């Protein structure tokens, strides 16, 4: 297992995702002899996980079972231990495309936070790219570096514990893309420019508040960035349901007999006068439909993108 490479079988030291349901997943560090408690009972790593194929059904001690999934940045995003607010997959997907990330890209990011976006970036830029990520909170920086090692992506990433607004990204003229998720991104815009290749590149700043966006856009324009554009992407989930709608009883319908053919009218009426009563009345209609969840995220943050022209 690695976050940048699929493997078929679960090995000692892997991170596996235990899937119990849509809203119920957890990451497990696979270790010989270790046990994990789930609501379906205990999973014994040595017998239940190690050597099993990713995607297998694993029976827990209470007889219930779970699926064990190969880790991906997307699964990690919904299961990771939060140390900060994190970016979710909808925004991450947009950021990745709009920053034009691909294998070989060199990316600067700040702050590292809980590493949700970092894992997605690493997946995309592997095997030849590099991520320079800056986190001013020492513990968080250390924790992130530790995770990257556990997830076997540490060769692709450098974590720096410094203040990006004061000290920049620690690199000059190497980045194809810069991502900012900090409270005052406008203070880091000039550092972003310094970090980027002289041939130019793309920058993105994520901010929850419009005032932050306003100041960032001004700073970007001042620093000569072009194609400044602010967007917002919202995910809508559609739950599929079978619904059945009752049909009200309109009572007996005399026109049903009189309408079809005027010539047969008398004939038909004599033959079966109580027709509505004998005909089966369809009182419900069943169909497949979608409903939105009761509550959905209405706002995460504004994404401001810009292009650094070549200098």
């Amino acid at each position, binding site marked *: 297992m690695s976050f*940048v490479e699929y493997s078929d079988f679960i090995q000692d030291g892997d991170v596996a995702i235990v899937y119990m349901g849509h809203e119920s997943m957890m990451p497990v560090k696979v270790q010989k002899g270790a046990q994990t408690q789930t609501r379906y009972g205990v999973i014994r790593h040595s017998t239940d996980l190690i050597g099993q194929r990713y995607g297998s059904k694993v029976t827990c001690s209470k007889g219930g079972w779970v*699926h064990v999934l190969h880790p991906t940045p997307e699964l990690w995003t919904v299961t990771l231990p939060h140390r900060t607010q994190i970016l979710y997959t909808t925004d991450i997907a947009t950021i*990745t495309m709009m920053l034009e990330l691909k294998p070989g890209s*060199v990316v600067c990011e700040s702050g590292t936070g809980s590493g949700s976006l970092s894992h997605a970036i690493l*997946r995309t830029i592997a095997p030849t790219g590099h991520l320079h990520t800056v986190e001013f909170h020492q513990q968080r920086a250390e924790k992130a570096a530790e995770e990257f090692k556990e997830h076997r992506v540490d060769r692709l990433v450098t974590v720096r514990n410094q203040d990006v607004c004061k000290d920049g990204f620690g690199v000059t003229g190497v980045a194809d893309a810069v991502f900012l998720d900090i409270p005052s991104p406008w203070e880091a815009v000039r550092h972003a420019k310094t970090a980027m290749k002289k041939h130019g590149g793309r920058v993105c700043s994520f901010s929850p508040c419009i005032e932050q966006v306003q100041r960032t856009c001004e700073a970007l324009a001042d620093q000569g960035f072009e194609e400044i554009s602010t967007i917002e992407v919202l995910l809508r*989930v559609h739950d599929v349901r079978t619904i059945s709608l009752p049909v009200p009883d309109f009572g007996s319908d005399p026109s049903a007999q009189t309408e079809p053919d005027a010539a047969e009218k008398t004939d038909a009426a004599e033959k079966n006068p109580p027709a509505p009563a004998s005909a089966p009345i369809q009182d419900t209609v069943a169909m497949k439909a*979608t409903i939105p969840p009761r509550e959905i995220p209405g706002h995460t943050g504004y994404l401001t993108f810009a292009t650094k022209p070549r200098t």
Partner: protein
Amino acid sequence: MADNGDDESQYRIKGGDYVVLKRGEIFKAVQIQPKKKVIFEKQWFFLDNAVGHLYSTTFEIGSGGVLQLRKLRDAESSSDAKEAGTDNRNIVDDGKSQKLTRDDIEMLKEQGLKGQEIIQQLIDNSSTFRDKTGFSQDKYIKKKKKKYENTVTILKPSCRILAMMYQGREPGKIRHLRYDTLAQMLTLANIHAGSKVLVFDTCAGLVLGAVMERMGGYGSVIQMYPGGEPVRAGVESFGFPAHFHDTLHGFPICHVNALLAGTLDTTAKDPSADSKQSNTAAEGKQNQPEAERQGSPEEQSMETSSCADGSHEQEKDEKEKRKEARAQEKKVKQEEKRRKLAAAAALLEGRNADGLVIASQYQPCPVLMGLLKFLSPSRPFVVYSQHKEPLIECYTKLKEHGGTVGVRLTDTWLRHYQVLPNRTHPLPLMSGGGGYLLSGTTVATDRSKPAGSQQAEEPAPKRLKMTDTEG
């Protein structure tokens, strides 16, 4: 790649390159060919002069369609020191505020005046311009710029640019797949270097190209295509280096059933060429198909070509002596085709693909159910549809069939913002539909068990319980 920072050549425009022209928010993909007339935004020009310049350079279109490097704009700031009104209480729309007539403007154009100069003329001859508010003046200039500016920027193609281009120019061709939806697809399918991905794309090849860009020439992409030939127009526009194409395989969807049933014969005449093909794929899966590659090649050639041009073989036999040269040529082509088919079949046969991306105008349910069989367990898939209803059917079918978890039906809303001092707001218009996605992850089932995996799983009835917990 970090070391490539100084390598200028990859940033320079070369003859034969596929590039994207840009003006304002309008894009157009073209190939740079000598002395080829290009029409873009009602203007025509030649791209010959662009060769040798760096990407992202902006050119002015001179007389005779010659591109000239745009001079740095010092003039732009000159009009900034200006007076402005505070409101529009005294501005009357009498239709006479512009002193220049239509003919005057045409004359300025014929004189070969630069866009910027025409705009300045328009401003100078507008009696109300000075009374407009600063915001209103900006808006006026912006509008005129859009109309009179005769510049074009030449960009290196990317998934971002091409997706936006298709959306603006030919949304019908890409089944109204909005660029943010495409972005979701690539991420939900965990597209990355080194994997083996199945793509069924009838969106002009845009999705296929996007997948290839994300894979960076590592791993393999198998394009499942309907009809005789795969559509790859969109892929061309990406201008991938040659080695990317070595990782791209095509497999006609009409052979899927035969392949699943094990009756597809892909015996090739030339084993050496075969190994060359499979070597390009990162997966070292040569072993399986090797065994099948022996046997009578003459017979096989008829079988494998049955899909597209089965009658050709017979025709050839009849007129062999007279048309030997042509037949030979055809034979070579068929041989090539068969070799490619064999290579793609070999990649599929292991049923161990790492991802599946479907974006087409076809009924998605049978496509999904058919192609899911080629995926390893614990691998993501994503299906795009312009309409929600076909995906509801897919969802229902997947739940009945089992073998998948985390199935979700989603779409995204995309909102653009105008961000300007004291004028920040969402743009009044937003795209009404960018399509829907069904995504999920495969898991091992007792039914379609890939060879060599563990059998120690729960019996099928337990599945019901899972469905319950998922709601």
